């Protein structure tokens, strides 16, 4: 078979079962593509030996007729997931050399489902960023660019390596994590599909923590069917994560009928931002028409506290990060600074953390420290948590009115040039304006590629679902995907 690395998970799965190809062939093709794509800087720790070993084991299981759901399918794993014996450093200097003695629950479930890990993927440091420019490994380059010699664009962040790798056909799919939009924004910037499930669907155990009340893992894939297949393998209850939900996981792929007749889709008026590019506005209108043509009822809705989601997020996420990142002290793992004569333990902490954390992580840890400090806790942190309750209430109310899903743009722009927004942290934060509400309310959200802008760059639409109704959300996304018919791929230049 030709172009093995371009296959969807579903097509590769079916080809493997029919005996048209083998996992070893698929895996070798991906490893070759990865080695030829170092310019993109997506894979930062390659694991060819592990990959070949798992591919051979998968072929044996396929032969024996004992193949689990993702048997033999080669994927990439975001560097945020702890993988046993394999560098897992959250793209931070402070975890340099760290090789976990354990496997995260999600990556273990993928192993159990037969998936083949090709390596670890680049990301923003500790998942803090929207452009993959805060990584200790350097920037990831988006495989998409404008024209034959256009400037290097960001793949988005924080799951930028995952997005670039799937878009550039280096792996069939990849894991991502999403705290404020880190799956959905890079998916939109690279023309792929990414879903963040309901908070509690995927276990957070073994995933390096950023903001524990917001973090969720999810798949980044070529299409909606693949998202359903991979999400199925990733989620489920885990006693090791006390916030993981003890709920049965439905068959997501079986829910993909494409029939959304009678569903009600809400269009939130507060997402029509001032200064929104006309192309994004036009794409949103087209998305609305596509869903209406598929038989859904479209209704205007109001989510009045939308405007306050980003400021609330930039209190809550740094606060939780400052607490979570307190563990990086140079004692148990990772980097420890060289100490001067007479330095005590405090100097060790301070020097280690100054050297180990990059500027954005230092900034967020300190902002978090400030908003939690005596005298400001109520004014900032408790107020933000109250606003968060109001944001969730906005969603609860529209769902109670019978809304099945909400359609919004995924991002306020297409992929931008690397270096362009790095100078102003607040401007960078605005990237997450359409996605961050979903994390604050703990809801499932999916980004689906829906068109190209005038420069030929991909744009995504986001659908937001009711809690725990990923199956229904995936089906609506499937209908949107079929109507949009997005098939564009980046022209290979790397």
């Amino acid at each position, binding site marked *: 078979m030709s172009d093995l690395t371009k296959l969807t998970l579903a097509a590769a799965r079916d080809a493997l079962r029919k005996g048209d190809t083998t996992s070893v062939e698929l895996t070798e093709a991906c490893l070759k593509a990865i080695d030829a794509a170092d310019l993109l800087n997506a894979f930062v720790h390659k694991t060819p030996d592990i990959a070949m070993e798992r591919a051979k084991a998968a072929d044996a299981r396929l032969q024996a007729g004992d193949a689990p759901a993702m048997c033999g399918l080669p994927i990439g794993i975001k560097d945020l997931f702890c993988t046993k014996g394999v560098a897992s450093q959250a793209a931070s200097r402070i975890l340099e050399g760290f090789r976990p003695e354990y496997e995260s629950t999600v990556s273990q479930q993928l192993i159990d489902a037969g998936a083949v890990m090709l390596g670890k993927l680049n990301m923003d440091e500790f998942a803090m960023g929207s452009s993959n420019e805060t990584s200790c490994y350097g920037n990831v380059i988006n495989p998409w660019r404008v024209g034959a010699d256009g400037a290097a664009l960001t793949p988005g962040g924080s799951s930028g390596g995952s997005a670039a790798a799937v878009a550039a056909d280096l792996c069939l799919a990849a894991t991502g994590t999403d705290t404020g939009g880190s799956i959905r924004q890079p998916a939109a910037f690279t023309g792929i599909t990414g879903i963040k499930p309901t908070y509690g669907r995927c276990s957070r155990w073994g995933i390096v923590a950023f903001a524990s009340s917001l973090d969720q893992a999810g798949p980044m894939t070529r299409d909606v069917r693949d998202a359903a297949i991979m999400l199925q393998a990733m989620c489920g209850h885990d006693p090791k994560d006390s916030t993981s939900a003890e709920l049965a996981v439905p068959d997501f792929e079986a829910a993909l009928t494409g029939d959304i007749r009678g569903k009600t889709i809400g269009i939130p008026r507060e997402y029509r931002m001032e200064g929104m590019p006309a192309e994004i506005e036009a794409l949103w209108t087209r998305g609305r028409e596509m869903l209406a043509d598929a038989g859904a009822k479209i209704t205007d809705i109001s989510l009045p506290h939308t405007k306050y989601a980003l400021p609330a997020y930039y209190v809550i996420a740094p606060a939780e990060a400052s607490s979570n990142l307190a563990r990086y002290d140079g004692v*148990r793992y*990772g980097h420890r600074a060289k100490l001067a004569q007479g330095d005590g333990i405090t100097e060790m902490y301070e020097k280690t953390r100054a050297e180990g954390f990059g500027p954005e992580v230092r900034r967020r840890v300190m*902002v*978090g420290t400030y908003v939690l400090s005596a005298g400001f806790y109520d004014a900032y942190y408790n107020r933000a948590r109250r606003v*968060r309750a*109001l944001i*969730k209430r906005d969603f609860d109310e529209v769902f109670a009115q019978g809304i099945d899903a909400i359609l919004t743009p995924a991002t306020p722009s297409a992929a931008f040039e690397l270096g362009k927004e790095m100078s102003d942290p607040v401007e960078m934060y605005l990237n997450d304006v359409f996605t961050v509400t979903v994390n604050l309310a703990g809801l499932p959200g999916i980004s689906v590629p829906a068109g190209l802008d005038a420069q030929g760059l991909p744009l995504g639409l986001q659908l937001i679902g009711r809690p725990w109704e990923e199956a229904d959300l995936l089906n609506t996304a499937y209908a949107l995907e079929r109507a949009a018919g997005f098939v564009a791929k980046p022209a290979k230049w790397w």
Partner: protein
Amino acid sequence: MSIDQDTARRVAKLARIKVEEDALPALAQEFNTILGFIEQLGEVDVEGVEPMVSVTPMRLKRREDVVTDGGMQDKILSNAPDAREGFFAVPKVVE
């Protein structure tokens, strides 16, 4: 609310991140930009609204308070920058 250099120094100390004296003005400026953005939350009427504890209405589970794991000293110490005689080693803490 404006953050001055003294506050920036104090926050860096609380966060245990070394910041050189000459980097403090820029840091204070960054804090002010971000806090200026956050200030918008002051406009929201939060009267009578409880701060959110858990985004999904769930009770955190309890388990019996018994040992469930252990006996893996080597694994625990395997990533330590400095481990000696089965312990993490750190600079002198008590004089």
